[in-house]
């Protein structure tokens, strides 16, 4: 029986942490769950848009010598498809989910820097929307998602399409780096007392590794795309060989980012899998320590592979062998994780629900994609397979198999936490079955097409090349994938309002996010828990069970030490504010303006500076109250 005082406290806690209602709430929300839900919806919308573009591609390629799309349109469409899926879906969706789950999994009331988190979302959204607006006005980029120079230079792509593309990179990289900073700080400094690094869920480990990788990988593409923009805008000639520039410089910089990016997409799903396998095998993952070491090893090795995208250039053979060795070696940590999951399934008691089905699908598909990856790591084989449909097959096996299958699994698993409702199990099974079959029908034939000599990025092929049957089959499979995604959307729509009520812990899982109501209250935890085990909900309660004394009137959080999560100090997080939104608009004007004139960098800097100054303007009242609550240790 809760006393009136407790109920009052809870009500006050809710008011303190809630975002304001109405239209002000739309632009000034900073609660990590609100931001994350918007982020997820936006990335999913981009996923659907990218998928529709893929259908157009498959429609064009279904039959030889088709004229459904012109060469110009086709080039724009495959560029938009790749760009959307890589930059506007795969990387940000993982960060979006992490922004929701990490604080709940580590017993925190918020993410660190909640306003920066909001800014990162807005800037991502504006960048993505800008690219699509350009595309709808027929100014889409058409040089492929890795935009090799000199094709993407002003001389060979004089339109604005590449400028929009390069500026979209700027938007998303700003967003991704800010999210990485938010997540690293949250994970290292805001874990509930007692959650030492050794008690951190594997998903959180995955997010930590990914976020650190973002900080090292993205500066390379920042440099690459900035040099491209200045080459195009003010003729700096970084990539112009006739003036002493180097075209391979772009490839090195881009792939130094681009290969780790694959792991930015792949490592968070490894965390989804560890969560789902543990829950549905009813036991913790076998070899927790090996799993953590494997994640960290993957993070390091991912930076030593980039040259395997460049085997067909004139780099020296001995150097290429080094990258072959590194590319083969990175298979080991992933293999170790797969073996650990199989050992977990082997020794568990399996509850075969939709999330686990998607994970089993992952095993088959990622395994195949990983093995074709070993083939591509080989210099001689790559010289035949590079830039053919074999690579298209491979990358879809690893990205859909390695990321989208676990992502759907994760969505079935955590949807009850996000909404308080269960997704339909029957529809889920249908969706899984259809997705699994259609995926293989769509993408397996592409391996054979590649070996039969079909290059990628061709808008058509001659009838007598012998590629017709497999292309048609692949297009039929693509249609099946679309139906499967449609089933998913129907399932979400139906369950959002009418699904069975989930309760706090519908799967009897072991991690902290399942200890709070579904959907969680604004402050996440009514009382901040103290953690005594890896799977706290599976262990008998221990003492002390929670922390007392945190303010309910202010957004007060606990800061703990990095390794052992010992209590360190209390901190007030800032309240909701529209300034991140306004600053994001000002930044968008700056970025888009600079496509049209270098002077935009000068003049549009003024509103950005003004917005940021007002954002960080200290409030006298807050400062005084904070000083008043300060207690000497």
């Amino acid at each position, binding site marked *: 029986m809760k006393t009136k005082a407790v109920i009052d406290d809870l009500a006050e806690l809710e008011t303190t942490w809630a975002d304001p209602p109405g239209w002000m709430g739309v632009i000034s929300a900073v609660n990590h769950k609100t931001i994350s839900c918007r982020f997820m919806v936006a990335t999913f919308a981009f996923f659907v848009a990218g998928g529709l573009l893929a259908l157009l591609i498959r429609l064009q390629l279904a039959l030889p010598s088709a004229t459904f799309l012109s060469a110009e349109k086709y080039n724009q469409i495959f560029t938009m498809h790749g760009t959307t899926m890589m930059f506007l879906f795969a990387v940000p969706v993982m960060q979006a989910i992490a922004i929701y789950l990490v604080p709940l999994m580590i017993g925190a009331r918020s993410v660190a820097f909640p306003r920066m988190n909001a800014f990162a979302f807005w800037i991502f959204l504006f960048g993505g929307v800008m690219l699509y607006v350009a595309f709808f006005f027929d100014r889409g980029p058409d040089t492929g998602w890795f935009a090799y120079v000199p094709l993407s230079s002003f001389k060979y792509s004089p339109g604005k399409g590449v400028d929009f593309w390069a500026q979209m990179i700027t938007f998303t990289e700003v967003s991704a780096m800010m999210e990485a900073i938010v997540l690293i700080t949250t994970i290292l400094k805001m874990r509930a007392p007692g959650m030492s690094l050794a008690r951190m869920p594997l998903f959180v480990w995955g997010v930590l590794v990914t976020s650190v990788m973002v900080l090292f990988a993205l500066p390379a593409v920042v440099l690459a795309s900035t040099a491209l923009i200045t080459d195009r805008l003010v003729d700096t000639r970084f990539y112009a060989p006739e003036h002493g520039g180097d075209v391979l410089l772009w490839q090195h910089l881009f792939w130094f980012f681009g290969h780790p990016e694959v792991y930015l997409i792949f490592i968070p799903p490894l965390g989804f899998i560890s969560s789902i396998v543990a829950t549905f095998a009813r036991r*913790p993952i076998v070899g927790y320590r090996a799993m953590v070491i494997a994640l960290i090893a993957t993070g390091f090795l991912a930076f030593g592979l980039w040259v395997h995208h460049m085997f067909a250039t004139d780099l020296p053979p001995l150097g290429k062998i080094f990258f*072959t060795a590194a590319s083969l070696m990175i298979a080991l940590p992933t293999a170790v994780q797969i073996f650990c999951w199989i050992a977990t399934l082997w020794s568990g008691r399996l509850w075969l629900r939709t999330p686990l089905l998607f994970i089993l699908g992952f095993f088959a598909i990622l395994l195949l994609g990983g093995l074709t990856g070993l083939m591509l790591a080989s210099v001689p084989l790559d010289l035949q397979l590079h830039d053919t449909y074999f690579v298209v097959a491979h990358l879809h096996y690893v990205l859909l198999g390695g990321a989208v299958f676990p992502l759907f699994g994760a969505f079935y698993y955590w949807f009850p936490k996000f909404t308080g409702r269960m997704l339909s199990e029957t529809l889920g099974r249908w969706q899984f079955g259809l997705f699994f079959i259609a995926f293989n029908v769509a993408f397996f034939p592409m391996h054979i097409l590649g070996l039969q000599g079909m290059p990628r990025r061709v808008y058509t092929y001659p009838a007598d*090349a*012998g590629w017709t*049957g*497999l292309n048609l089959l692949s297009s039929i499979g693509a249609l099946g994938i679309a139906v499967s995604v449609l089933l998913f959307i129907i399932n979400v729509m139906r369950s959002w309002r009418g699904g069975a009520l989930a309760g706090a812990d519908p799967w009897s899982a072991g991690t902290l996010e399942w200890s709070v109501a579904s959907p969680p209250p604004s402050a996440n935890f009514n009382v901040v828990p103290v953690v005594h085990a890896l*799977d706290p909900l599976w262990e008998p309660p221990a003492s002390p069970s929670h922390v007392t004394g945190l303010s309910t009137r202010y957004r007060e959080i606990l800061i703990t030490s990095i390794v052992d999560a010992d209590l360190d100090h209390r901190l007030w997080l800032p309240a909701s504010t529209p300034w991140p939104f306004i600053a994001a608009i000002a930044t968008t004007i700056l970025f888009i303006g600079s496509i049209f004139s270098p002077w935009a960098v000068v003049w549009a800097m003024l509103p950005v500076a003004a917005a940021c100054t007002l954002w960080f303007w200290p409030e006298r009242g807050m400062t005084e109250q904070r000083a008043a609550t300060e207690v000497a240790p």
Partner: protein
Amino acid sequence: MSDYYAAAIIRGNARHVALAIACLLLETAAPLPSHAQTAIGAQNAVHPGGIQAAHILQLWNGTLALCLLVFVAVLGACLIAVWRAPRGTGTTEPDVGAPGAREQRLLRAVRWSAIFAAAGLISLLAGNIFTGRALAELPAENALRIELHGHSWWWEARYHDPLTAQRFATANELHLPVGRAAIITMHSDDVIHSLWVPNLHGKLDLIPGRTTEIRLRADHAGLYRGQCAEFCGLQHTMMALLVVADPPTEYARWAERQTRQAPQPPGGSIVQHGQQIFLHQCAQCHAINTPPAGAATIGPDLTHLASRQTIAAGMLPNKRGYLAGWIVDAPSIKPGVQMPAIKLAPDDLQALLAYLETLL
């Protein structure tokens, strides 16, 4: 066959669609057609026409076998785990007991699997190194030398045979003598292209500002199709080239003909009128090695145009109708191409075509 599928699908006749799909599956399972049967030349990495592609195919077969083994083993272990593990539900008490002997057994299994995986990876690396060495050791004494320039979107080839001292230029069609290596040095003056003739060897990029070098040797006579493999803009798709691997005597005959000058048309003939049209309309961009035509290099050298099998970088067969269409309106056949639409009176066009047909 494809027209049949297309027709079936357009008609939407369910029986025909089902039949078409069944045919497709059968066709997929059936052996790949041999290159002799395809008119445009083979373009297939698993039908080697030269020693290098054969080396790579050998590595491919070994790698495929090893990977299949791993696939079956790991997926098998996963399926057995799912099949034999007892079933649980949400009410099943989680198994969080202290790690015991069973946990140790499981970890040992993981460790051994990882050791096997590492051994497999090392054997792959060894295979790569040996194949890479075999590829690099292609003997190149007395090799034919070809300078290949990539253009958006066609191939310019300049031959130099150190044995016969022959020099000549051609485009979009390489002839190679069977059994003799060719050292091809490659340049690009615009964007990155990539030479890929899968029946002979893997691909190598043509990189602006750099010179790359690839060695090719055809060991079986045949017609091999190659295609630009690095996305190079609007008509990347339509940047193909043919490699004709000829027996040495036949090659020698071809090469000798390529060094000849284009014939001077007899005075007053329709062909001579055609030559006048050529000089007036085409010679700004296209070279013919006979005066008074110049040595323009914007478009392909046409000295022996009529001896080639295709035009427009492998896009169209080199037949009178296609050639006429290409001259009159190239931009609508291959949008983005540099060649403009040439407005010619019908008589002038016929004369020009007659002249071009003498360029054997």
